């Protein structure tokens, strides 16, 4: 092996310290190290998340009582648009893949980096550029965008807000997403450790693999659609503008061809995280490894055929409506399989209830509510009643925040010791978890009730009969925010002052735990070779790490 000049250091020191030639801020901004890039994503996303969360709190505040409370309808419309654009395009779509995919995937595969490290850095810059363009829309033009994150034509064509900037931002962010996806697919195909066949990959890798394919195949469709919206605004090309012969329903088709599969981009990696967290805390292998792996791919494929359930009331043909309804129910099956397998993993296990497992269980509970309420949206007659109501908002937050968001928090608490080499305060983390779970349900469950009562979404004002659930929901938003802030403060403090983390604090079996915490720049002192499946606990006591088992 040709050793690099920094070679010996690259295999022993911490990636956080950097080689002496690359220190300080430039050492981060020019790095091609997947771990450092992951942390840069984490930092950027953390900021965007807090901005999005603040806007969300302001929205809830306005909706606490009927009538105008603090600001008018125009501001409200801008707020829910920004909340959607920031949370979807800047936080939850790139979320787990960009942060934990980047950090963990090469480690789990036993590789030194992703397949294209420079492209990886480029993805981050493209992401930041897209974010900058999207946020430019706040100041460019007469007023911020007010279309909602879906940019439905013809409203988005006629709106006086600076929609074009927001749309262009989403377009550029799509590129970042595509680049990351390509990078991961090639990494998985080419850089698996010796002996690691596809069916010996950890399930998080499977989740990312399915996700990456969706990113590569679906994103370009929305890319061209968004470009056409900008062209429509600039030149009046009339492809979506009914007054010029275009069809607004076609816009919705093209938008959802991407935007439905993309909810699987958000959720599949989170499902992978949960599948990886359960085994170490249960001290046993996951139940039904193959079924979980294959169901990820099945969800990705079937997910392309279900977008029409967002459009049951737009005037699609009745035939298309029932076909999409049928296909939507099919996608529920592999999702159910995962939940049953996770539950079965606890059977005859040896369970140690620590923070990552708490988050994983929280995920299963909240995502189950999200998934089950999704059945209401899959069935034709019931969806027609709840479509475009607060029910959808509740359902969406249960799947995306309760699913992808809590999955991200779970990943954060699971891999934190590996990423920063320090432990966090588990007591505070448990309290934060409790607040988040209570706040979450107080915030979003009333929305389900409101929707069934007939409360439409994106309403700045509402009739008096909807007041009580709205009030409860707003109180919930304060509890949730308290929990999240407590969690963030705990993690930031621990990243600097926490006690040193052992290499394998949870007694996990996947490859990232065989290297030091934090890992060296080149990930492994010696590159690993794989001889068993990813969750092989044979010959090991539950909770015991690799080294302890060996000694």
């Amino acid at each position, binding site marked *: 092996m040709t050793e690099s000049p920094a070679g010996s250091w690259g295999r022993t020191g911490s990636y956080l310290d950097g080689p002496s030639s690359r220190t300080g801020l430039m050492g981060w901004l020019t790095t091609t190290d997947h771990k450092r890039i992951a942390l840069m994503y984490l930092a950027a996303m953390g900021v965007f998340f807090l901005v999005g969360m603040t806007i969300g709190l302001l929205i809830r505040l306005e909706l606490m009582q009927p009538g105008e409370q603090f600001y008018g309808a125009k501001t409200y419309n801008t707020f829910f648009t920004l909340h959607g654009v920031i949370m979807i395009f800047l936080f939850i779509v790139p979320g787990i893949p960009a942060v934990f995919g980047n950090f963990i995937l090469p480690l789990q595969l*036993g590789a030194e980096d992703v397949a294209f490290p420079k492209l990886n850095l480029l993805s981050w810059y493209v992401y930041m550029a897209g974010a900058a363009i999207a946020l430019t829309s706040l100041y460019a033009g007469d007023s911020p965008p007010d279309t909602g994150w879906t940019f439905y034509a013809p409203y988005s064509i006629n709106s006086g807000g600076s929609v074009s900037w927001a749309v262009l931002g989403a377009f550029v962010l799509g590129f970042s997403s595509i680049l990351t996806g390509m990078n991961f697919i090639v990494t998985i*195909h080419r850089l*698996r450790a*010796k002996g690691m066949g596809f069916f010996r990959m950890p399930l998080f890798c499977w989740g990312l693999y399915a996700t990456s394919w969706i990113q590569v*195949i679906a994103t370009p469709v929305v890319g061209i659609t968004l470009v056409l919206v900008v062209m429509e605004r600039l030149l009046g090309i009339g492809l979506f503008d009914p007054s010029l012969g275009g069809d607004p329903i076609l816009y919705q088709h093209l938008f959802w061809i991407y935007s439905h599969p993309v909810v699987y981009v958000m959720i599949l990696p989170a499902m992978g995280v949960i599948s990886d967290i359960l085994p170490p805390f249960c001290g046993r292998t996951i139940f039904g490894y193959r079924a979980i792996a294959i169901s990820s791919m099945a969800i990705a494929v079937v997910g*392309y055929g279900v977008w029409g359930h967002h459009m049951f009331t737009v005037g699609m043909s*009745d035939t*298309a409506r029932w076909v999409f309804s049928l296909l939507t129910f099919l996608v529920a099956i592999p999702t159910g399989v995962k939940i049953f397998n996770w539950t079965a993993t606890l059977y005859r296990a040896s369970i140690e209830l620590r923070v990552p497992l708490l988050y994983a269980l929280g995920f299963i509970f909240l995502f189950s509510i999200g998934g089950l309420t999704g059945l209401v949206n899959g069935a034709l007659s019931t969806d027609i009643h709840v479509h475009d109501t607060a029910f959808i908002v509740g359902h969406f937050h249960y799947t995306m925040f309760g699913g992808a968001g809590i999955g991200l928090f779970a990943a954060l608490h699971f891999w934190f010791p590996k990423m920063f080499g320090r432990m966090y305060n588990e007591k505070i983390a448990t309290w934060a978890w409790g607040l988040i779970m209570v706040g979450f349900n107080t915030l979003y469950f009333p929305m389900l009730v409101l929707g069934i009562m007939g409360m439409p979404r994106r309403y700045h004002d509402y009739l008096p009969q909807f007041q009580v659930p709205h009030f409860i929901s707003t109180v919930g938003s304060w509890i949730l925010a308290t929990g999240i802030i407590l969690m963030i403060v705990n993690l930031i403090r621990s990243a600097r002052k926490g006690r040193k983390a052992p290499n394998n604090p949870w007694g996990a079996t996947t490859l990232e735990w*065989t290297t030091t915490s934090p890992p060296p720049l080149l990930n492994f002192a010696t590159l690993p070779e794989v001889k068993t499946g990813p969750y092989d606990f044979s010959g090991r006591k539950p909770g015991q790490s*690799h080294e302890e088992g060996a000694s």
Partner: protein
Amino acid sequence: MESTTTLSAEYAHEDHEESHVVPDRTQFNVYVILILLTAATVFASVKFPGPIGIGTALVVTPVKGTLIAMFFMHLKYEKPVFVIMFLVALAILALVMGLTILDYLHR
């Protein structure tokens, strides 16, 4: 502890394989066929506008595309994994296009 330092060896033994060089004559033949197919399509659509012209284009164009993909783009000589990925991408495009058309056909 594992002791080897081998990285990603699953495909490693194939890495040194020489790229397949396709004879220029083959490529030239493909080119001639492509030109002839183009001529046929143009002829059919000019002479028989309507179903025959459209039908010819519908059949011939994908054939031309396949020829380019197989020979010019070397898919014929690549590992099956490339062909499979290519077909998956096309199948998904066909799926979403088909479902969209389904809506409009039944309006």
